[in-house]
Each structure stands twice: as structure tokens, then as C-alpha cells.
């Protein structure tokens, strides 16, 4: 039983890692007033970038490829939303549609349609001495691939940036009151574009960690709704980095639950477990949105100033 629980907790942190990367990035862009429904597309672009990079021979190239893929797709979104001031939701939907199609097309044309999984270098778990020997949670949190440790650092870094720096304050001002921010000499569109690019880098990391640390290969549409779940995680985490990380853990647990229950043997249809994270998202959104307030200017597109 303890073994099953340890395995469950490890799987929880492992599956939560890509979700947390994506949600952390989305937190930055939503605090600046931009909701990127195209996050799903950013993640799949990151996945594909990681595949292409890792095919180049090293896992580091994979990470770089993932980040570049995510940033490039978010760049397209930023261009439309902050420069052209196009509708955020529709642009994001198109980005997802396009990124899923483009990665699918390129994957089939570059790597063939045989369906044989490509073998690429992957990230192995690294045990941190002492900490990983802690009972129950030690292995779960401290015997993980390096990207998970990077994530721990980023949670703190994003918190520090948003709450303790001038740039972070300006970014939040843009998300709450763009007119006032502009009157104070801030250029909202430029700051929003930067925030979207940051979310692209982190969304790309989400894709890269999915490919390099979790699945070990690329399959079409492997993002499987994680971008949308990440947006729900941001709301559940109340737009705060630590809250978002904890919310990601909850969803990691919801996904890992299927492994735990499968190992225990159950008569419930497995589709129910597959659907569980999506059902949980609905419940969480209903429970969460009643009490918390999103950044005031979230989703607005009439922001001036470049």
C-alpha cells in the first residue's frame, strides 16, 4: 500500500509539472490582462519543438526547441492581440487549431506516418541527497527530473517578480487599470506583449517537459487539453504563483489517480478516469469563480499605447 501511495505521489508531481509550467506562464499574462486561450497551441508547439530539438541529439537541445516553439507561437498571438488588438478568445482558439494542425502535418511529413514512436533522449529523475529520503513525500518531490526543480525555482521567481519588482507592479497595473497605468507612463501593449512571450516560454517548457520528462516521445495532439486545464488552474490558484502551483498538484493528482486505481483493480470504466480531470475542471471553476476576482481588465482589447 505504501508503495502504491509513493508511486501515486511521484506520478502526481510528474504529471503536475507541465501543468504548473503552463499555468505559471498564463498567470503572468493574465495578470497583465491577457487571457491566452491558445495556451493549448503553445504547449503542442513546445512539444513539437522539443521533439525536433531532441532529435538533434541532446536533451538540452530538446528543452531549447520546446522553449522556441512555445515562444514563437505565443509571438503570433502577441502580435494579433497587442498590436492589431484582435479579439483574445478567437485569436487564441485559432492559434490552438493552427498549432495542432501544423505540428500534426509537420510530424507526419518529417517523421513518416508509420506511427512508430520515435526514440529521443529523455530526462531522468535525479534524487536530491537527504531530501529524497524523507518519508512519503521525499521521493515524490525530490526524485524528479531537473525540469521539476527548475519549476520550484520559477514559482518563487514569478512570485518575487509580480509582488516585489517595479516591472511586476507595472504589469499588474496594466491588468487592473490600463488607462491609469498609461497615464503613469507605462506602455500597456508593450508590457502585455512581453507578458505573453513569457507565457510562451513557460508554455514551451510545459510542452518540453511533457515530451522529455513524462511521455518520452511525441504524438499528435498530445497536449490533450492541458492548456485549457492550465487556464482553469490559474483561476483556482487565484492568480498567485504558489496557489497556482498547489492547484496544479491537485490536477496532477486527479490524473495520477487513474494509475493508482488501475493498480488496485476496479470495475469502473477507464474512460471515467480519463474524463475525471476535465470534470474536476468544471467543478473547480464553479466553486472557485464565485468568490475570487480576476484581473479587472482581463480579456479587454481596447488598450491603447504601444
Amino acid at each position, binding site marked *: 500500500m505504501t508503495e502504491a501511495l509513493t508511486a501515486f505521489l511521484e506520478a502526481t508531481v510528474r504529471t503536475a509539472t507541465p501543468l504548473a509550467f503552463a499555468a505559471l506562464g498564463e498567470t503572468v499574462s493574465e495578470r497583465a490582462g491577457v487571457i491566452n486561450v491558445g495556451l493549448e497551441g503553445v504547449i503542442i508547439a513546445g512539444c513539437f519543438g522539443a521533439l525536433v530539438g531532441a532529435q538533434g541529439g541532446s536533451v538540452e537541445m530538446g528543452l531549447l526547441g520546446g522553449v522556441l516553439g512555445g515562444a514563437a507561437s505565443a509571438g503570433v498571438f502577441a502580435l494579433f492581440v497587442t498590436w*492589431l488588438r484582435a479579439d483574445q478568445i478567437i485569436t487564441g482558439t*485559432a492559434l490552438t487549431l493552427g498549432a495542432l494542425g501544423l505540428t500534426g502535418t509537420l510530424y507526419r511529413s518529417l517523421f513518416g506516418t508509420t506511427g512508430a514512436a520515435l526514440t529521443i533522449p529523455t530526462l531522468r529523475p535525479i534524487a536530491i541527497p537527504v531530501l529524497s529520503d524523507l518519508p512519503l513525500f521525499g521521493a515524490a518531490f525530490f526524485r524528479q527530473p531537473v525540469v521539476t526543480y527548475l519549476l520550484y525555482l520559477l514559482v518563487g521567481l514569478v512570485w518575487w517578480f509580480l509582488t516585489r519588482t517595479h516591472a511586476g507592479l507595472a504589469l499588474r497595473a496594466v491588468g487592473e487599470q490600463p488607462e491609469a497605468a498609461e497615464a503613469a507612463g507605462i506602455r500597456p501593449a508593450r508590457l502585455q506583449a512581453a507578458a505573453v512571450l513569457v507565457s510562451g516560454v513557460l508554455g514551451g517548457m510545459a510542452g518540453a517537459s511533457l515530451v522529455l520528462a513524462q511521455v518520452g516521445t511525441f504524438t499528435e495532439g498530445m497536449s490533450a487539453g492541458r492548456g485549457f486545464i492550465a487556464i482553469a488552474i490559474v483561476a483556482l490558484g487565484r492568480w498567485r504563483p504558489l496557489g497556482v502551483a498547489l492547484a496544479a498538484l491537485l490536477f496532477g493528482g486527479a490524473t495520477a489517480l487513474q494509475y493508482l486505481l488501475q493498480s488496485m483493480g476496479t470495475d469502473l470504466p477507464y474512460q471515467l478516469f480519463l*474524463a475525471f480531470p476535465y470534470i474536476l475542471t468544471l467543478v473547480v471553476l464553479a466553486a472557485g469563480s464565485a468568490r475570487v476576482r480576476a484581473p479587472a481588465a482581463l480579456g479587454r482589447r481596447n488598450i491603447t499605447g504601444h
Partner: protein
Amino acid sequence: MTRLAPLRPSASVAPLVLTLALAIGIVALLAAILTLGGFNVGRAMTALVRGAGGSSYAIFSATLVRATPLILTGLAVALAFKAGILNIGAEGQLLTGAAVAAAVALGMGPSLGAGALVIALIAAAAGGALCAALPAWLQRRFGVLEVISTIMMNFIALYGVGYLVRGPLQEPTRAYPQSSAIPDATHLPILIPGTRLHVGFAIAVIATLAAWYVTRNLAAGFRLRVVGSNPSAAASAGGLDVPAVTFRVFLLSGALAGLAGGVELTGVTYALYENISPGYGYTAIAVALLAGLHPGLVLASGILLGALEAGAAAMQREAGVPLVLVSVVEALIILAIVGAQAFLSRRSAGSTGAGT
């Protein structure tokens, strides 16, 4: 809730030159992607044109058959968007409609015959409406962003169908993840003898004309438009119950998408399986936006994108180009439209920017 700024038919805002430039730009980008993927561009493009409209078979048995679910789901998305509801869940609503239609046709078909077909289609619409009811209720009661909730419903519906075709609705030999074929009496009749075009196309055309008439001439259509374009004015000056109107349009949108699923099942596939929709519900967004959310124009844009899908299928057969390339083209169409509209409205409004 995030609301759309009113979208207008691009013809009224965009000069013909711009439309033409967008078309050329999209074709150029398509060619670039094909080149990048290492495909024979000339052969692929020829296959695309031939598969979409090169013969009467291509037109009646491929393009119009594929256009049918696109018109119905496109109509569902157009009406919702017009009322300010971002229903991205047409895919899940379509799947639910198809599943319900399959259950009714299999259950009642043997005893009721063609009567079961009518019940199946009505039940499919009801199933789609039910699938939209949860996001609609979550939005009204808790203010949950319907973009996310409808997408979640798409995944839930997909796994639901996956369960049905491996469980209660699986064919008796239990060898394949699909249902039995529905009885012949519950098939939608063929519209033009010698083709695969079924009565569902006529249903789609009638639905389009009805929606056009209602939104143009009746009070209900006026309410829908005013709630979508200016909810606060609709509530304060018009005395409209905005949440109630929104809720009803949301259900209607779901019903249309559910009907699309019922029509696809009884007119084309005759059995339920997981991949029954190649993403019609997502393509529907491109259909609706290309039509400028105009119900009448949905007919034209649905046929156009039906032609694109039929052509893409030929491109896959003859030039080995993956079918998923279609979604890239659709994304480009959507981006081109929202980009051009934003650009034009920004130019005409200067930098004052009306509030959304």
C-alpha cells in the same frame, strides 16, 4: 464574461481588394507549408481542386455531404457568437447528438421504422442542448467562462462516446469499438438519386433559412442581436432579461450542433464510433466567422469549407498530404478575418477604441 465586439460580414467592412489579398495570402501560405513538408505542391493543389469540385461526384457526394454538418454546426456557433456566447463546444454537442441518435435508432428502429428516424433526430437535438445546458448553467449561476467549460465538455463527450462504443452500445461480437449499424428504415433518404447526398443537406438549408428569417424579422432575433452587441443597454434601456436570453440561445446553439450529429449518424456513418467527427465542431468556428456570423452566409461558407475538406481528403489520397493540414488553413482563415477586422476598425476608430 468576455464578450465579442460585434463582428460584421467582412464584405461590408473590408474592400474587395483586401478579401482577395487574404485569399492569395492563404493560398501562398498553404503552398509554403506544403513545400516545407516536402510535398509536390502542384500535384497537391490539383488534387485539392479536383476533389472539391472537379466532377459531379466530387460536388454532390463529397463537398455537399461534408458541408452538411459544417452548415449546422456553423449555424450553432454563429447564433451563439452573435449573442455574445463563446460556444466552442459544438464538437461535444455534435458527439452527444450522434450518440443519442444511435441509441434511439438502434433501440426503436426495429419496431418503429422511419418513425424512429424522426425521434432520433429530435432526440439528437435535445442531447446537444443538454450538453450545452451544463456550461450555460455554470455561466449563468457561477460566471464560469464558457470557452473553457464547453471545451471541457468536448473531452467529456469524447470519452463518453468511447465508453458507449466499448460498453452499452458496442456491436454484439464485441470485436470493434463501434455500435451495430442502425436499421435501414432509420437511414436518412438520399436527396439526389445516384449520389451520397442525403436529406440532411435539405435540413441544413432549411435551418439556415429559418435562422436567417428569425434573426432578421422577428423580435427574438432582435433580442439576440442586442444582447450580443450591447448587454448593458439591452438590460437597462431594453428591459431585457439578458441572462435568460443568453441561456436560451446557448441551448438552441447546442441543439443545432446536436442535430448535426444526428444527421451525420443517420445520413452518413449509420453507426456510432469515436472518430465520427473529424473536428466538425472546431471547423464550425471558421465557418461562422467566415460568414461574418450571418446565418444566411453560413450556407455559403459551410459549402466552401466542405469543399476544402473534400479537397483535402483528395489531397491525402493522391499526394499523401496529411488531412490535419485543413485545420491550419482554417486557423489562417480565422486569423486573417479577426486580424483584418481589428486592423480596419482600429484605422476607422483611430486610437479612441470603443469599449467592449
